[in-house]
């Protein structure tokens, strides 16, 4: 029995429970919902297939996008002299939605975290340095106001400042521990306006 194909429903529950914030109970409920709802399984599998085929990372800023360069890097109306550094794509989206920033972005794909074995080489830091060396006026560090986010910004500041670029950190209007992704637009705009040089 053990080498036969797994039960499809069980496999679905298993894969759903790999998602963040989804326990096995929720996964089971979701799986049954997908099976019961007309057309849902088909729609989901179509869009998952499309994502698998067509969505990748922008080779300039590492934003998750279906085109390379991503729409933000390709936008001619955006300023080229300021880059805003974020941890992940949802942070980029939150800042972009707030509408207060019209420069370019750089997604690190995480934060420094020795506990998780993540060091400088595991983030898109070399690529950021290359962009700075290419000529930038300012780098805004917009990592989350968590211990790891702060430490990552501190690390980048030590690395970038000797290159002669202005390095700023968004203001702590965003309360400690709160993540950008869940912060409202006006707070994000204020945190950007009140950024300080570090």
């Amino acid at each position, binding site marked *: 029995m053990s080498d036969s194909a797994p039960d499809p429903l069980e496999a679905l529950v298993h894969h759903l429970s790999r998602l963040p914030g989804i326990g096995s109970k929720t996964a089971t409920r979701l799986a049954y919902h997908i099976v019961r709802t007309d057309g849902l399984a088909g729609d989901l599998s179509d869009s998952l297939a499309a994502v698998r085929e067509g969505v990748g990372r922008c080779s300039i800023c590492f934003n998750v996008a279906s085109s390379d360069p991503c729409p933000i890097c390709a936008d001619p109306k955006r300023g080229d002299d300021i880059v805003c550094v974020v941890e992940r794509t949802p942070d980029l989206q939150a800042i972009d939605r707030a509408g207060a920033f019209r420069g370019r972005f750089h997604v690190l794909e995480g934060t*420094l975290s*020795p*506990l998780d074995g993540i*060091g400088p080489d595991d983030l898109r830091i070399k690529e950021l340095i290359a962009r700075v060396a290419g000529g930038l006026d300012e780098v805004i560090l917009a990592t989350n106001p968590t*211990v790891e986010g702060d430490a990552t910004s*501190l*690390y980048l500041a030590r*690395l970038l400042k000797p290159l002669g670029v202005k390095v700023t950190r968004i203001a702590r209007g965003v309360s400690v521990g709160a993540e950008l992704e869940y912060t409202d637009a006006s707070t994000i705009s204020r945190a950007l306006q009140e950024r300080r040089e570090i």
Partner: protein
Amino acid sequence: MYLLGTLKSFRRARGPDMILKGAEVASVKGRLVAGGLPRDCAVSLTKKGLQFKIDGKSPRGLPDWFALIKAVAFVPSDLRMVDGPPDLRREFLDRAAFTLDPTFLGIAREYRVALKQKNALLRDSKRMGRPIDPTMLEIWNDKLVRAGAQVVHRRTEFLRQFAPVFREVHKGITAAAKGRAEFRYRGCVGTEALADGISSIEAALGTKVAAAAAQEARRGFCVAGPHRDDWELRVGGEPLRSFGSQGQVRSAALSMRIGQMVLAKRVSGVCPLFLLDDVSSELDPHRNAHLMSLLLDLEAQVLITTTHRDNLRLDAGAYKSWNVRTGTLSPD
């Protein structure tokens, strides 16, 4: 109730032991009135850990929980706060400092995270035998020192405010007071810097951490920082942990818990719920009467468990009682 108030199980039983054999979950529910509104609190313990809910919803974090549910408990293991290992004393200090200033919990958490991260950095470089990236070490040290200095500052600030309150309570319930009681904070920052305020504490801690660098790299973990600090209670200039009798240790520990309530009431206007686990049998009648009048004056809600009701020295009209027999509660 101890579990609801502290999120720790009574007498330091390990979590999973509290779940009945064969059951999936152990849960405790309570209702309390805060700001005139009844609130339902529930804690459930599963094999995965502790879950807590206020009015059926998960609070955003522990600060929300402890802001609503204020309780102080005196349990037998509290005696070890005076004469036991330093981690119990740090725990008392951090919990009590939080009662005084709820933002302390966030600071303490920040310190813990920075400490864990730096420990991981030291451990990995030792294990793999490769030198630590100096910039990495520098940034974690920076986070550690900033948060650590706040921790030290708030702890000593708490002790400064706590000492006079403690003395007041202690005098009342100690049979033979042998001079003035004082708290002394001992650790990574010297007395002068402690008195000088946050920027001096930060500078002193920074120097200590820098000086420990070689030792830390060799041992693979953090040796400098407030996670190893301690404090001691001195009476008449002598540390109580080394010369105090069992009775003195007991009344000092009890005074600390009552002092914690008095201070909380002074700061917030609300007296925490007080849980007292069989104490009266060990105080003499005179001191016991004093203890009860102190609690009555505080207008605190107090829950006492005792095997000898006569020891309470309370008028029959001053309390309600229940009997506990083989795990069931019945009105007296």
